[in-house]
């Protein structure tokens, strides 16, 4: 573990040359291992001896850590401390002083000093203080970049979501305007189509809102999960029954190959979201008079659910992006199919809670098989991570 992953820039501000040399030497041999992040941090130090030199040194360089003397020939360390805290919230300052009084310590802390070292101090005392400061600095920096990443993901998500919500509004708006200006009348050939399409778009929007709620609920971890022993087979039968109307419309046969009793410890609503999305997709993206075969393999620690359709299939590129939020495969084969683009991404998020996975194998024009694997019994419940 001698490899250094990150080097912090340290500025030593002290008018005593001996102090600067000593501190530099102590730091050059110091490394800090930050356990939480598994990173090793080293130090690179620069020394200046007065307020003026300090001002010149910060023109083109930013320092992560500053060791600051209380008394300088041309100014007070406290002035520098104040300036640093006005400019950069990230830089941490360790005050060093020979006039260690309780009052100066309080004053320095109030001005934002991270730590306080009373001169004379041993190299070990210096290292300890620097170790603490470095850990704090690196963790704060990581937290900040994580926050930024989260903000970026949230912005992207909301901008796509707004597009998804705006599209049906635009569609219905367009049709209503045609009706309003008389381009379409109840006698027109297209009249039933635009009424039907408007209703379908409204239904799609409703579905999007429900899917969004499902997803948010899973990601936020707000709702307590109710993990209990379940039998998958009757749940599957109920869901097949619920999708029967949709299947009959296109003359699609749904077959279930499963034992009467398949037990798993799970939250019923999560399992229903997974299975319903898979069954519903297999019917929607099928061909007329096609089949859907649902096979459940009960293995020692795992449940394997395969949903095979004889539908339109997916190209390699389509398969690669399929499990991301709001991805819908749009081409002339899918022109009539409604979907929010959240179903598969939600399944992926749920399977992760069961230490499982979702995969697809597919051939364009022949059909797709989705396979979900779930761990039957979890030792520790994994709580969902907030992604957006």
């Amino acid at each position, binding site marked *: 573990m001698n490899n250094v992953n990150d080097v912090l820039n340290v500025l030593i501000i002290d008018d005593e040359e001996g102090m600067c040399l000593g501190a530099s030497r102590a730091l050059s041999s110091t490394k800090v291992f930050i356990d939480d992040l598994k990173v090793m941090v080293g130090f690179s130090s620069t020394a200046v001896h007065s307020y003026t030199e300090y001002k010149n040194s910060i023109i083109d360089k930013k320092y992560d850590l500053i060791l600051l003397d209380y008394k300088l020939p041309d100014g007070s360390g406290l002035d520098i401390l104040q300036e640093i805290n006005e400019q950069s919230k990230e830089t941490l300052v360790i005050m060093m002083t020979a006039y260690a009084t309780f009052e100066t310590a309080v004053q320095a802390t109030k001005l934002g000093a991270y730590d306080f070292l009373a001169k004379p101090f041993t190299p070990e005392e210096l290292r300890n203080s620097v170790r603490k400061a470095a850990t704090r600095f690196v963790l704060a920096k990581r937290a900040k970049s994580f926050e930024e990443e989260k903000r970026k993901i949230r912005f992207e998500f909301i*901008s796509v979501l*707004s*597009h998804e919500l*705006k*599209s*049906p*509004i*635009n*569609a*219905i*708006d*367009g*049709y209503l*305007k*045609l009706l309003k*200006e008389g*381009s*379409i009348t109840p006698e027109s050939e*297209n009249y039933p*189509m*635009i009424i039907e*399409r408007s209703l379908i*778009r409204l239904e799609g929007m409703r579905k999007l809102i429900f899917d969004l709620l499902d997803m948010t609920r899973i990601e936020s971890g707000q709702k307590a999960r109710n993990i209990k022993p379940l039998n998958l087979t009757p749940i599957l039968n109920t869901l097949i029954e619920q999708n029967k109307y949709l299947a009959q419309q296109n003359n699609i046969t749904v077959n279930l190959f499963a034992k009467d009793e398949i037990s798993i410890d799970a939250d019923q609503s999560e399992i229903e979201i997974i299975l319903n999305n898979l069954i519903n997709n297999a019917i929607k993206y099928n061909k007329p008079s096609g089949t859907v075969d649902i096979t459940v393999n009960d293995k020692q620690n795992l449940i394997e659910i395969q949903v095979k359709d004889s539908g339109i299939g997916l190209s390699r590129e389509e398969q690669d992006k399929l499990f991301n939020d709001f991805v819908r495969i*749009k*081409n*002339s084969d*899918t*022109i*009539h199919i409604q979907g929010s683009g959240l179903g598969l991404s939600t399944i992926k998020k749920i399977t992760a809670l069961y230490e499982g996975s979702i995969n697809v194998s597919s051939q364009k024009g022949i059909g797709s098989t989705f396979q979900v694997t779930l761990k039957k019994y979890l030792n520790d419940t994994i709580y969902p991570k907030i992604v957006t």
Partner: protein
Amino acid sequence: MAKILCIDDDRDVLETCKIILTTEKHNVTMAMNGNEGYSKAKADAPDLILLDVMMDDNTEGFHTAYKLRKDPTLKFVPILMLTSVNQKLNMKCDPKKDGNFLPVDAFLEKPVEKAKLLKEVKRLLALKKDDINIDGH
């Protein structure tokens, strides 16, 4: 009467454009993504192309526009770009300005309105070859 190709991933935007354009007896073909649109353009040699911006990704329409302009047989087909960028980013698309980097001839805001669409279509169909914005200038 002209041959018009509409490229949009939203079926209802396509249907609306078709209903509007058919009132002027235009012959309308439809495509749901950039690649499908490009193939249909190659096959049908349309007189005008209506092109959506945000399809599979946020900029698919832009890429399709560049691809169409690179094709010697399709280079001079006027392109009317349909956007809802304005609503989304509170940003105005201005063909005079944005045409500097985008090789399209006009922009039209969604939702599509009949009078505006027909007016633009009429104007673009009358454009001479020299006036087509083929390279973004």
